[in-house]
Protein backbone atom coordinates (compact mmCIF):
# COMPACT_ATOMS: atom_id res chain seq x y z
CA UNK A 1 0.00 0.00 0.00
CA UNK A 2 2.75 2.41 1.01
CA UNK A 3 4.88 1.36 -1.99
CA UNK A 4 1.97 1.89 -4.41
CA UNK A 5 1.24 5.34 -3.00
CA UNK A 6 4.93 6.21 -3.27
CA UNK A 7 4.95 5.14 -6.94
CA UNK A 8 1.83 7.22 -7.65
CA UNK A 9 3.29 10.32 -5.99
CA UNK A 10 6.57 9.80 -7.81
CA UNK A 11 4.80 9.44 -11.13
CA UNK A 12 2.80 12.64 -10.59
CA UNK A 13 5.49 14.84 -9.13
CA UNK A 14 8.55 13.97 -11.22
CA UNK A 15 8.76 14.60 -15.02
CA UNK A 16 8.13 11.68 -17.31
CA UNK A 17 11.22 10.87 -19.33
CA UNK A 18 11.38 8.73 -22.45
CA UNK A 19 14.92 7.75 -23.19
CA UNK A 20 16.77 6.75 -26.36
CA UNK A 21 14.68 8.98 -28.60
CA UNK A 22 15.99 9.38 -32.13
CA UNK A 23 15.14 12.84 -33.49
CA UNK A 24 17.01 12.25 -36.75
CA UNK A 25 15.32 13.83 -39.75
CA UNK A 26 16.11 11.55 -42.70
CA UNK A 27 16.31 14.29 -45.26
CA UNK A 28 17.37 17.89 -45.04
CA UNK A 29 14.79 20.59 -45.63
CA UNK A 30 15.60 23.37 -48.05
CA UNK A 31 13.53 26.41 -47.16
CA UNK A 32 13.25 29.73 -48.94
CA UNK A 33 12.79 32.76 -46.67
CA UNK A 34 9.96 35.16 -47.44
CA UNK A 35 10.41 38.94 -47.48
CA UNK A 36 10.52 39.03 -43.71
CA UNK A 37 13.01 36.22 -43.45
CA UNK A 38 10.49 33.69 -42.22
CA UNK A 39 10.93 30.07 -43.25
CA UNK A 40 8.47 27.25 -42.78
CA UNK A 41 9.06 23.54 -43.08
CA UNK A 42 5.78 22.09 -44.31
CA UNK A 43 6.88 18.57 -43.47
CA UNK A 44 7.26 19.02 -39.71
CA UNK A 45 5.68 22.42 -39.23
CA UNK A 46 8.83 24.13 -37.98
CA UNK A 47 8.67 27.86 -38.55
CA UNK A 48 11.22 30.49 -37.58
CA UNK A 49 12.87 33.72 -38.70
CA UNK A 50 16.26 33.36 -40.30
CA UNK A 51 17.36 36.98 -39.76
CA UNK A 52 19.23 36.37 -36.47
CA UNK A 53 21.35 33.77 -38.29
CA UNK A 54 21.87 36.12 -41.22
CA UNK A 55 22.97 38.84 -38.81
CA UNK A 56 25.36 36.44 -37.14
CA UNK A 57 26.89 35.67 -40.53
CA UNK A 58 26.82 39.03 -42.29
CA UNK A 59 26.07 41.62 -39.61
CA UNK A 60 23.39 42.88 -41.97
CA UNK A 61 19.62 42.65 -41.59
CA UNK A 62 18.63 45.52 -43.88
CA UNK A 63 17.19 42.98 -46.34
CA UNK A 64 16.87 39.26 -46.62
CA UNK A 65 20.02 38.15 -48.38
CA UNK A 66 19.91 34.57 -47.24
CA UNK A 67 18.91 32.31 -50.08
CA UNK A 68 17.78 28.77 -49.44
CA UNK A 69 18.19 27.74 -45.83
CA UNK A 70 19.41 24.16 -45.35
CA UNK A 71 18.17 22.51 -42.21
CA UNK A 72 18.39 19.04 -40.75
CA UNK A 73 17.72 17.61 -37.32
CA UNK A 74 20.31 15.27 -35.82
CA UNK A 75 19.50 12.17 -33.86
CA UNK A 76 20.04 14.04 -30.54
CA UNK A 77 17.42 16.60 -31.50
CA UNK A 78 19.66 19.53 -32.46
CA UNK A 79 18.94 21.45 -35.66
CA UNK A 80 21.86 22.03 -38.02
CA UNK A 81 21.27 25.15 -40.06
CA UNK A 82 23.26 26.85 -42.80
CA UNK A 83 22.81 28.55 -46.15
CA UNK A 84 24.71 29.33 -49.30
CA UNK A 85 27.44 31.90 -48.57
CA UNK A 86 27.48 31.15 -44.84
CA UNK A 87 30.84 30.34 -43.34
CA UNK A 88 29.33 28.44 -40.43
CA UNK A 89 26.84 25.78 -39.52
CA UNK A 90 24.61 26.72 -36.60
CA UNK A 91 23.73 23.94 -34.20
CA UNK A 92 20.48 25.01 -32.57
CA UNK A 93 18.77 23.47 -29.58
CA UNK A 94 14.94 23.70 -29.45
CA UNK A 95 13.59 24.93 -26.15
CA UNK A 96 10.41 26.67 -24.97
CA UNK A 97 9.49 28.32 -28.28
CA UNK A 98 13.08 29.18 -29.08
CA UNK A 99 16.01 27.84 -30.97
CA UNK A 100 19.06 28.43 -28.90
CA UNK A 101 22.57 28.32 -30.31
CA UNK A 102 24.35 25.26 -29.07
CA UNK A 103 27.41 25.55 -31.30
CA UNK A 104 28.56 27.60 -34.24
CA UNK A 105 30.76 25.36 -36.39
CA UNK A 106 33.11 27.30 -38.63
CA UNK A 107 33.54 25.59 -42.01
CA UNK A 108 35.66 27.98 -44.05
CA UNK A 109 36.31 31.65 -44.61
CA UNK A 110 35.09 31.71 -48.22
CA UNK A 111 31.57 30.70 -47.39
CA UNK A 112 29.74 27.59 -48.53
CA UNK A 113 29.10 27.50 -52.27
CA UNK A 114 26.62 24.67 -52.45
CA UNK A 115 25.76 23.36 -49.00
CA UNK A 116 23.73 20.19 -48.38
CA UNK A 117 23.14 18.11 -45.25
CA UNK A 118 22.89 14.34 -45.20
CA UNK A 119 21.78 12.25 -42.28
CA UNK A 120 24.69 9.90 -41.63
CA UNK A 121 24.12 8.75 -38.06
CA UNK A 122 25.80 9.31 -35.73
CA UNK A 123 26.93 12.33 -37.79
CA UNK A 124 25.39 14.99 -39.90
CA UNK A 125 27.27 15.10 -43.16
CA UNK A 126 27.77 18.55 -44.64
CA UNK A 127 28.60 18.69 -48.32
CA UNK A 128 29.89 21.71 -50.10
CA UNK A 129 29.19 20.77 -53.70
CA UNK A 130 30.97 17.56 -54.51
CA UNK A 131 34.35 18.89 -53.48
CA UNK A 132 34.23 18.70 -49.72
CA UNK A 133 32.38 16.91 -47.01
CA UNK A 134 32.41 17.28 -43.27
CA UNK A 135 31.09 14.97 -40.60
CA UNK A 136 29.45 17.15 -38.00
CA UNK A 137 28.39 16.54 -34.43
CA UNK A 138 26.74 18.96 -32.04
CA UNK A 139 30.23 19.89 -30.87
CA UNK A 140 31.88 20.55 -34.22
CA UNK A 141 33.57 18.82 -37.13
CA UNK A 142 34.43 15.20 -36.40
CA UNK A 143 37.97 15.02 -35.08
CA UNK A 144 38.15 18.79 -34.63
CA UNK A 145 35.59 19.12 -31.88
CA UNK A 146 36.50 21.69 -29.28
Amino acid at each position, binding site marked *: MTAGLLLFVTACSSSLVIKKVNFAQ*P*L*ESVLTPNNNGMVKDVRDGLKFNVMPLQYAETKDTSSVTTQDVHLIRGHEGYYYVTAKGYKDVFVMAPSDGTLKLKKKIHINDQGLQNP*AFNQRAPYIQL*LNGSSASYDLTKDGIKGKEK
Partner: protein
Amino acid sequence: MDIRIYNKTKRIAALLLFLMVGASLTLQAQAQQTQQSDYQIVQSFKKTYDNLNQQIDQATSVDQINSVITDINNFDTKYSSHKQLLDNALYPKTYDQEIQNLKQRASTTASRLKVLQSQSQKLAELNQEVANYSQQLQALNSKTDSLGNLMHRMSGRNAHMSRLIAEYRKSIKERNNFISSVIDSLFITYKNLKLSSVKSEAGKKSQIGANGNALKLIENIANNNTNFIDSHPTLTTAEYLKMDAVQKQFSDMWNKLGDKLVKIFAPNNQTKARNDVEQALNKWQSKVSNYTWKAVAATFKEQNIDLGSFKNGSGFYSSLKNYLDNAIKRSRQHADDQEYNKFQTFSSLWNDTVKTQWADNLVKANAMTYQDIATIDQKVSTWGQLTQPKSYAMFIYLGIAIIIIIILAFMLYRAKSTPDTSDDKG
Protein backbone atom coordinates in the same frame (compact mmCIF):
# COMPACT_ATOMS: atom_id res chain seq x y z
CA MET B 1 73.55 -9.72 -60.56
CA ASP B 2 73.20 -6.43 -58.64
CA ILE B 3 71.80 -4.79 -61.74
CA ARG B 4 69.21 -7.56 -62.08
CA ILE B 5 68.11 -7.11 -58.46
CA TYR B 6 68.02 -3.35 -59.02
CA ASN B 7 65.79 -3.73 -62.09
CA LYS B 8 63.49 -6.14 -60.30
CA THR B 9 63.14 -3.78 -57.36
CA LYS B 10 62.45 -0.96 -59.78
CA ARG B 11 59.68 -2.94 -61.46
CA ILE B 12 58.08 -3.83 -58.11
CA ALA B 13 58.23 -0.19 -57.06
CA ALA B 14 56.58 0.89 -60.30
CA LEU B 15 53.89 -1.72 -59.84
CA LEU B 16 53.27 -0.61 -56.27
CA LEU B 17 53.08 2.98 -57.39
CA PHE B 18 50.57 2.04 -60.08
CA LEU B 19 48.44 0.14 -57.58
CA MET B 20 48.52 3.03 -55.13
CA VAL B 21 47.46 5.51 -57.77
CA GLY B 22 44.68 3.15 -58.85
CA ALA B 23 43.50 2.66 -55.27
CA SER B 24 43.63 6.39 -54.67
CA LEU B 25 41.55 7.09 -57.77
CA THR B 26 39.02 4.41 -56.77
CA LEU B 27 38.72 5.82 -53.28
CA GLN B 28 38.34 9.30 -54.68
CA ALA B 29 35.63 8.10 -57.02
CA GLN B 30 33.89 6.35 -54.17
CA ALA B 31 34.21 9.45 -52.03
CA GLN B 32 32.72 11.52 -54.82
CA GLN B 33 29.95 8.99 -55.22
CA THR B 34 29.09 9.16 -51.55
CA GLN B 35 29.34 12.93 -51.57
CA GLN B 36 25.90 13.38 -52.99
CA SER B 37 23.22 15.42 -51.39
CA ASP B 38 20.33 13.21 -50.29
CA TYR B 39 18.08 16.16 -50.91
CA GLN B 40 19.34 16.41 -54.48
CA ILE B 41 18.86 12.68 -54.98
CA VAL B 42 15.26 12.98 -53.82
CA GLN B 43 14.66 16.09 -55.91
CA SER B 44 16.18 14.45 -58.92
CA PHE B 45 14.10 11.33 -58.34
CA LYS B 46 10.91 13.36 -58.09
CA LYS B 47 11.73 15.39 -61.17
CA THR B 48 12.52 12.33 -63.26
CA TYR B 49 9.47 10.57 -61.87
CA ASP B 50 7.22 13.44 -62.91
CA ASN B 51 8.92 13.60 -66.27
CA LEU B 52 8.38 9.89 -66.88
CA ASN B 53 4.75 10.24 -65.87
CA GLN B 54 4.39 13.04 -68.36
CA GLN B 55 6.07 10.95 -71.06
CA ILE B 56 3.59 8.15 -70.38
CA ASP B 57 0.71 10.59 -70.85
CA GLN B 58 2.19 12.01 -74.02
CA ALA B 59 3.15 8.71 -75.68
CA THR B 60 1.26 8.28 -78.93
CA SER B 61 2.89 5.19 -80.37
CA VAL B 62 3.97 1.76 -79.23
CA ASP B 63 7.60 2.66 -79.99
CA GLN B 64 7.38 5.73 -77.79
CA ILE B 65 5.89 3.91 -74.84
CA ASN B 66 8.41 1.09 -75.19
CA SER B 67 11.16 3.67 -74.98
CA VAL B 68 9.52 5.13 -71.85
CA ILE B 69 9.32 1.63 -70.32
CA THR B 70 13.06 1.21 -70.92
CA ASP B 71 13.66 4.58 -69.25
CA ILE B 72 11.55 3.49 -66.28
CA ASN B 73 13.58 0.32 -65.88
CA ASN B 74 16.81 2.35 -66.00
CA PHE B 75 15.31 4.79 -63.54
CA ASP B 76 14.52 1.92 -61.19
CA THR B 77 18.03 0.52 -61.54
CA LYS B 78 19.54 3.93 -60.84
CA TYR B 79 17.51 4.75 -57.74
CA SER B 80 16.96 1.33 -56.17
CA SER B 81 20.19 1.78 -54.20
CA HIS B 82 18.58 4.84 -52.56
CA LYS B 83 15.43 2.95 -51.66
CA GLN B 84 15.76 3.56 -47.92
CA LEU B 85 16.30 7.28 -48.39
CA LEU B 86 13.43 7.55 -50.84
CA ASP B 87 11.11 5.54 -48.60
CA ASN B 88 11.72 8.18 -45.92
CA ALA B 89 11.42 11.09 -48.29
CA LEU B 90 8.29 9.81 -50.03
CA TYR B 91 6.47 8.81 -46.83
CA PRO B 92 3.58 7.82 -46.61
CA LYS B 93 4.27 6.37 -50.07
CA THR B 94 7.19 4.07 -50.65
CA TYR B 95 9.77 3.78 -53.36
CA ASP B 96 8.40 0.41 -54.47
CA GLN B 97 4.87 1.78 -54.67
CA GLU B 98 5.97 4.72 -56.77
CA ILE B 99 7.95 2.54 -59.18
CA GLN B 100 5.12 0.03 -59.35
CA ASN B 101 2.67 2.82 -60.06
CA LEU B 102 4.88 4.12 -62.86
CA LYS B 103 5.32 0.67 -64.40
CA GLN B 104 1.61 -0.05 -64.12
CA ARG B 105 0.66 3.18 -65.85
CA ALA B 106 3.20 2.57 -68.60
CA SER B 107 1.94 -0.96 -69.08
CA THR B 108 -1.69 0.21 -69.31
CA THR B 109 -0.73 2.88 -71.82
CA ALA B 110 1.27 0.32 -73.82
CA SER B 111 -1.76 -1.98 -73.99
CA ARG B 112 -3.98 0.90 -75.07
CA LEU B 113 -1.53 2.00 -77.75
CA LYS B 114 -1.15 -1.56 -79.02
CA VAL B 115 -4.93 -1.78 -79.43
CA LEU B 116 -4.87 1.60 -81.14
CA GLN B 117 -2.10 0.51 -83.46
CA SER B 118 -3.91 -2.68 -84.37
CA GLN B 119 -7.12 -0.70 -84.94
CA SER B 120 -5.25 1.75 -87.14
CA GLN B 121 -3.76 -1.11 -89.12
CA LYS B 122 -7.19 -2.66 -89.37
CA LEU B 123 -8.62 0.61 -90.61
CA ALA B 124 -5.84 0.93 -93.17
CA GLU B 125 -6.69 -2.57 -94.39
CA LEU B 126 -10.36 -1.65 -94.53
CA ASN B 127 -9.60 1.45 -96.50
CA GLN B 128 -7.64 -0.65 -98.94
CA GLU B 129 -10.55 -3.06 -99.13
CA VAL B 130 -12.95 -0.21 -99.81
CA ALA B 131 -10.63 1.09 -102.52
CA ASN B 132 -10.61 -2.39 -104.07
CA TYR B 133 -14.39 -2.50 -103.93
CA SER B 134 -14.58 0.79 -105.79
CA GLN B 135 -12.34 -0.57 -108.51
CA GLN B 136 -14.25 -3.85 -108.76
CA LEU B 137 -17.58 -2.06 -108.93
CA GLN B 138 -16.22 0.20 -111.63
CA ALA B 139 -15.06 -2.84 -113.60
CA LEU B 140 -18.44 -4.55 -113.22
CA ASN B 141 -20.26 -1.40 -114.30
CA SER B 142 -18.08 -1.10 -117.38
CA LYS B 143 -18.67 -4.74 -118.24
CA THR B 144 -22.46 -4.44 -117.86
CA ASP B 145 -22.54 -1.17 -119.79
CA SER B 146 -20.53 -2.51 -122.65
CA LEU B 147 -22.69 -5.64 -122.82
CA GLY B 148 -25.79 -3.45 -122.83
CA ASN B 149 -24.40 -1.30 -125.64
CA LEU B 150 -23.38 -4.35 -127.61
CA MET B 151 -26.85 -5.83 -127.22
CA HIS B 152 -28.33 -2.59 -128.48
CA ARG B 153 -26.11 -2.61 -131.56
CA MET B 154 -26.65 -6.32 -132.20
CA SER B 155 -30.43 -6.21 -131.97
CA GLY B 156 -31.91 -8.31 -134.74
CA ARG B 157 -29.14 -10.86 -134.97
CA ASN B 158 -30.88 -13.41 -132.83
CA ALA B 159 -28.36 -16.20 -132.73
CA HIS B 160 -25.71 -13.98 -131.27
CA MET B 161 -28.19 -12.08 -129.13
CA SER B 162 -29.22 -14.99 -126.95
CA ARG B 163 -25.63 -15.54 -125.86
CA LEU B 164 -25.20 -11.82 -125.22
CA ILE B 165 -28.41 -11.64 -123.20
CA ALA B 166 -27.29 -14.57 -121.05
CA GLU B 167 -23.96 -12.88 -120.46
CA TYR B 168 -25.66 -9.58 -119.72
CA ARG B 169 -27.98 -11.18 -117.17
CA LYS B 170 -25.02 -12.89 -115.61
CA SER B 171 -23.11 -9.62 -115.29
CA ILE B 172 -26.10 -7.91 -113.64
CA LYS B 173 -26.39 -10.80 -111.20
CA GLU B 174 -22.68 -10.64 -110.54
CA ARG B 175 -22.97 -6.92 -109.90
CA ASN B 176 -25.86 -7.32 -107.45
CA ASN B 177 -24.06 -10.11 -105.62
CA PHE B 178 -20.97 -7.97 -105.42
CA ILE B 179 -22.85 -5.06 -103.85
CA SER B 180 -24.39 -7.47 -101.33
CA SER B 181 -20.95 -8.72 -100.44
CA VAL B 182 -19.76 -5.12 -99.98
CA ILE B 183 -22.63 -4.57 -97.56
CA ASP B 184 -21.78 -7.70 -95.60
CA SER B 185 -18.12 -6.85 -95.52
CA LEU B 186 -18.65 -3.22 -94.52
CA PHE B 187 -21.12 -4.22 -91.87
CA ILE B 188 -19.01 -6.91 -90.28
CA THR B 189 -15.80 -4.94 -90.31
CA TYR B 190 -17.00 -1.49 -89.31
CA LYS B 191 -19.46 -2.80 -86.73
CA ASN B 192 -16.65 -4.15 -84.59
CA LEU B 193 -14.33 -1.21 -85.07
CA LYS B 194 -13.84 0.88 -81.95
CA LEU B 195 -14.88 4.36 -82.85
CA SER B 196 -12.72 6.24 -80.37
CA SER B 197 -9.55 4.53 -81.49
CA VAL B 198 -9.87 5.14 -85.20
CA LYS B 199 -11.52 8.52 -85.31
CA SER B 200 -8.46 10.68 -85.75
CA GLU B 201 -6.64 8.33 -88.10
CA ALA B 202 -9.64 7.91 -90.36
CA GLY B 203 -10.37 11.60 -90.19
CA LYS B 204 -6.96 12.30 -91.67
CA LYS B 205 -7.56 9.75 -94.41
CA SER B 206 -10.95 11.15 -95.30
CA GLN B 207 -9.39 14.52 -95.81
CA ILE B 208 -6.83 13.09 -98.19
CA GLY B 209 -9.38 11.90 -100.72
CA ALA B 210 -12.28 9.64 -101.55
CA ASN B 211 -10.12 6.61 -102.19
CA GLY B 212 -10.53 4.25 -99.27
CA ASN B 213 -13.35 6.27 -97.79
CA ALA B 214 -16.32 4.04 -96.98
CA LEU B 215 -18.72 7.02 -96.97
CA LYS B 216 -17.76 7.93 -100.50
CA LEU B 217 -18.03 4.31 -101.55
CA ILE B 218 -21.59 4.12 -100.25
CA GLU B 219 -22.52 7.37 -101.91
CA ASN B 220 -20.90 6.24 -105.17
CA ILE B 221 -22.70 2.89 -105.09
CA ALA B 222 -26.02 4.65 -104.52
CA ASN B 223 -25.46 7.17 -107.34
CA ASN B 224 -24.12 4.48 -109.57
CA ASN B 225 -27.19 2.34 -109.12
CA THR B 226 -29.52 5.24 -109.74
CA ASN B 227 -27.77 5.91 -113.07
CA PHE B 228 -27.58 2.20 -113.81
CA ILE B 229 -31.35 1.79 -113.55
CA ASP B 230 -31.92 4.72 -115.90
CA SER B 231 -29.42 3.45 -118.43
CA HIS B 232 -30.54 -0.20 -118.43
CA PRO B 233 -34.25 -0.24 -119.24
CA THR B 234 -34.26 -3.88 -120.30
CA LEU B 235 -33.96 -5.37 -116.84
CA THR B 236 -36.36 -8.11 -115.89
CA THR B 237 -38.81 -7.85 -113.01
CA ALA B 238 -36.74 -10.39 -111.06
CA GLU B 239 -33.65 -8.24 -111.59
CA TYR B 240 -35.49 -5.13 -110.42
CA LEU B 241 -36.67 -7.01 -107.36
CA LYS B 242 -33.13 -8.15 -106.65
CA MET B 243 -31.95 -4.54 -106.94
CA ASP B 244 -34.72 -3.43 -104.62
CA ALA B 245 -33.64 -6.05 -102.09
CA VAL B 246 -30.01 -4.92 -102.41
CA GLN B 247 -31.09 -1.33 -101.91
CA LYS B 248 -32.97 -2.25 -98.73
CA GLN B 249 -29.97 -4.18 -97.46
CA PHE B 250 -27.84 -1.15 -98.16
CA SER B 251 -30.23 1.20 -96.37
CA ASP B 252 -30.39 -1.16 -93.40
CA MET B 253 -26.62 -1.24 -93.26
CA TRP B 254 -26.55 2.55 -93.40
CA ASN B 255 -29.11 2.87 -90.60
CA LYS B 256 -26.98 0.66 -88.40
CA LEU B 257 -23.53 1.98 -89.32
CA GLY B 258 -24.19 5.44 -90.69
CA ASP B 259 -23.48 7.33 -87.49
CA LYS B 260 -20.27 5.47 -86.96
CA LEU B 261 -19.04 5.87 -90.52
CA VAL B 262 -19.82 9.59 -90.50
CA LYS B 263 -17.90 10.04 -87.27
CA ILE B 264 -14.97 8.08 -88.64
CA PHE B 265 -14.74 9.54 -92.13
CA ALA B 266 -16.18 13.02 -91.77
CA PRO B 267 -15.62 14.04 -88.16
CA ASN B 268 -15.60 17.73 -89.03
CA ASN B 269 -18.51 17.75 -91.43
CA GLN B 270 -20.91 15.16 -90.09
CA THR B 271 -24.25 16.73 -91.05
CA LYS B 272 -23.33 17.35 -94.67
CA ALA B 273 -21.74 13.92 -95.08
CA ARG B 274 -24.83 12.24 -93.61
CA ASN B 275 -27.17 14.30 -95.80
CA ASP B 276 -25.18 13.54 -98.95
CA VAL B 277 -25.30 9.80 -98.40
CA GLU B 278 -28.94 9.78 -97.33
CA GLN B 279 -29.94 11.87 -100.32
CA ALA B 280 -28.15 9.44 -102.65
CA LEU B 281 -29.73 6.43 -100.91
CA ASN B 282 -33.23 7.97 -101.05
CA LYS B 283 -32.83 8.74 -104.74
CA TRP B 284 -31.70 5.20 -105.40
CA GLN B 285 -34.55 3.82 -103.30
CA SER B 286 -37.16 5.93 -105.05
CA LYS B 287 -35.85 5.04 -108.50
CA VAL B 288 -35.53 1.31 -107.93
CA SER B 289 -38.90 1.15 -106.17
CA ASN B 290 -40.63 2.99 -108.99
CA TYR B 291 -39.17 0.70 -111.68
CA THR B 292 -39.68 -2.45 -109.63
CA TRP B 293 -43.39 -2.08 -108.96
CA LYS B 294 -44.11 -0.91 -112.47
CA ALA B 295 -42.33 -4.04 -113.71
CA VAL B 296 -44.25 -6.26 -111.29
CA ALA B 297 -47.58 -4.78 -112.39
CA ALA B 298 -46.56 -5.14 -116.04
CA THR B 299 -45.70 -8.81 -115.52
CA PHE B 300 -49.23 -9.49 -114.27
CA LYS B 301 -50.77 -7.32 -116.96
CA GLU B 302 -48.97 -9.31 -119.66
CA GLN B 303 -51.03 -12.28 -118.47
CA ASN B 304 -54.23 -10.18 -118.52
CA ILE B 305 -54.29 -10.06 -114.76
CA ASP B 306 -55.23 -6.60 -113.69
CA LEU B 307 -54.08 -5.99 -110.13
CA GLY B 308 -54.63 -2.26 -110.28
CA SER B 309 -51.83 0.13 -109.41
CA PHE B 310 -49.44 -0.16 -106.47
CA LYS B 311 -46.23 1.56 -105.51
CA ASN B 312 -44.75 -0.68 -102.88
CA GLY B 313 -44.76 -4.12 -101.34
CA SER B 314 -47.74 -3.59 -99.10
CA GLY B 315 -49.67 -2.18 -102.06
CA PHE B 316 -48.75 -5.26 -104.10
CA TYR B 317 -49.90 -7.54 -101.28
CA SER B 318 -53.20 -5.66 -100.89
CA SER B 319 -53.80 -5.80 -104.65
CA LEU B 320 -53.15 -9.55 -104.73
CA LYS B 321 -55.45 -10.09 -101.78
CA ASN B 322 -58.26 -7.99 -103.30
CA TYR B 323 -57.88 -9.68 -106.66
CA LEU B 324 -58.07 -13.17 -105.10
CA ASP B 325 -60.90 -12.27 -102.71
CA ASN B 326 -62.95 -11.05 -105.66
CA ALA B 327 -62.06 -14.14 -107.68
CA ILE B 328 -63.04 -16.44 -104.82
CA LYS B 329 -66.30 -14.58 -104.35
CA ARG B 330 -66.99 -14.79 -108.07
CA SER B 331 -66.18 -18.49 -108.15
CA ARG B 332 -68.43 -19.24 -105.23
CA GLN B 333 -71.32 -17.67 -107.14
CA HIS B 334 -70.54 -19.03 -110.54
CA ALA B 335 -67.56 -21.10 -111.56
CA ASP B 336 -67.16 -21.79 -115.23
CA ASP B 337 -64.45 -22.67 -117.71
CA GLN B 338 -63.51 -19.03 -118.18
CA GLU B 339 -62.96 -18.64 -114.47
CA TYR B 340 -60.97 -21.84 -114.43
CA ASN B 341 -58.73 -20.51 -117.22
CA LYS B 342 -58.21 -17.30 -115.27
CA PHE B 343 -57.26 -19.34 -112.25
CA GLN B 344 -54.79 -21.42 -114.24
CA THR B 345 -53.09 -18.34 -115.66
CA PHE B 346 -52.83 -16.75 -112.26
CA SER B 347 -51.74 -19.95 -110.57
CA SER B 348 -49.03 -20.53 -113.12
CA LEU B 349 -47.68 -16.99 -112.70
CA TRP B 350 -47.93 -17.20 -108.93
CA ASN B 351 -46.26 -20.59 -108.60
CA ASP B 352 -43.70 -20.45 -111.40
CA THR B 353 -42.65 -16.82 -111.17
CA VAL B 354 -43.64 -15.10 -107.94
CA LYS B 355 -42.99 -17.96 -105.54
CA THR B 356 -40.04 -19.43 -107.41
CA GLN B 357 -38.19 -16.38 -108.68
CA TRP B 358 -39.38 -13.40 -106.68
CA ALA B 359 -40.21 -14.59 -103.19
CA ASP B 360 -36.72 -14.35 -101.66
CA ASN B 361 -36.14 -10.86 -102.96
CA LEU B 362 -39.64 -9.72 -102.01
CA VAL B 363 -38.88 -10.77 -98.46
CA LYS B 364 -35.35 -9.31 -98.48
CA ALA B 365 -36.74 -6.02 -99.76
CA ASN B 366 -39.28 -6.06 -96.89
CA ALA B 367 -41.98 -5.91 -99.57
CA MET B 368 -43.70 -9.04 -98.32
CA THR B 369 -43.21 -11.51 -95.52
CA TYR B 370 -43.28 -15.26 -95.86
CA GLN B 371 -46.55 -15.08 -93.93
CA ASP B 372 -47.99 -12.77 -96.61
CA ILE B 373 -46.88 -15.20 -99.31
CA ALA B 374 -48.48 -18.08 -97.40
CA THR B 375 -51.74 -16.10 -97.08
CA ILE B 376 -51.85 -15.44 -100.81
CA ASP B 377 -50.94 -19.05 -101.49
CA GLN B 378 -53.88 -20.18 -99.36
CA LYS B 379 -56.24 -17.91 -101.30
CA VAL B 380 -54.92 -19.22 -104.63
CA SER B 381 -55.56 -22.74 -103.41
CA THR B 382 -59.12 -21.86 -102.32
CA TRP B 383 -59.81 -20.24 -105.65
CA GLY B 384 -58.46 -23.33 -107.39
CA GLN B 385 -60.78 -25.61 -105.44
CA LEU B 386 -63.77 -23.47 -106.30
CA THR B 387 -63.03 -23.28 -110.03
CA GLN B 388 -62.00 -26.93 -110.42
CA PRO B 389 -64.42 -28.56 -113.03
CA LYS B 390 -66.86 -30.98 -111.31
CA SER B 391 -66.07 -34.66 -111.90
CA TYR B 392 -69.02 -37.17 -112.76
CA ALA B 393 -66.84 -40.24 -112.88
CA MET B 394 -67.78 -41.24 -109.38
CA PHE B 395 -71.50 -41.25 -110.22
CA ILE B 396 -70.89 -43.28 -113.39
CA TYR B 397 -68.84 -45.84 -111.48
CA LEU B 398 -71.53 -46.01 -108.82
CA GLY B 399 -74.26 -46.52 -111.46
CA ILE B 400 -72.29 -49.29 -113.15
CA ALA B 401 -71.70 -50.96 -109.80
CA ILE B 402 -75.43 -50.84 -109.00
CA ILE B 403 -76.36 -52.30 -112.40
CA ILE B 404 -73.84 -55.12 -111.93
CA ILE B 405 -75.25 -55.85 -108.48
CA ILE B 406 -78.83 -55.93 -109.87
CA ILE B 407 -77.83 -58.30 -112.70
CA LEU B 408 -76.02 -60.59 -110.29
CA ALA B 409 -79.00 -60.59 -107.89
CA PHE B 410 -81.37 -61.35 -110.77
CA MET B 411 -79.18 -64.22 -111.96
CA LEU B 412 -79.02 -65.65 -108.44
CA TYR B 413 -82.80 -65.43 -108.08
CA ARG B 414 -83.30 -67.17 -111.43
CA ALA B 415 -80.91 -69.93 -110.47
CA LYS B 416 -82.73 -70.63 -107.20
CA SER B 417 -86.26 -70.55 -108.68
CA THR B 418 -85.53 -73.07 -111.58
CA PRO B 419 -86.69 -76.77 -110.58
CA ASP B 420 -83.99 -79.45 -110.36
CA THR B 421 -84.71 -82.07 -113.17
CA SER B 422 -81.83 -84.46 -112.56
CA ASP B 423 -83.77 -86.68 -110.09
CA ASP B 424 -86.60 -87.03 -112.57
CA LYS B 425 -84.17 -88.28 -115.15
CA GLY B 426 -82.64 -90.77 -112.67
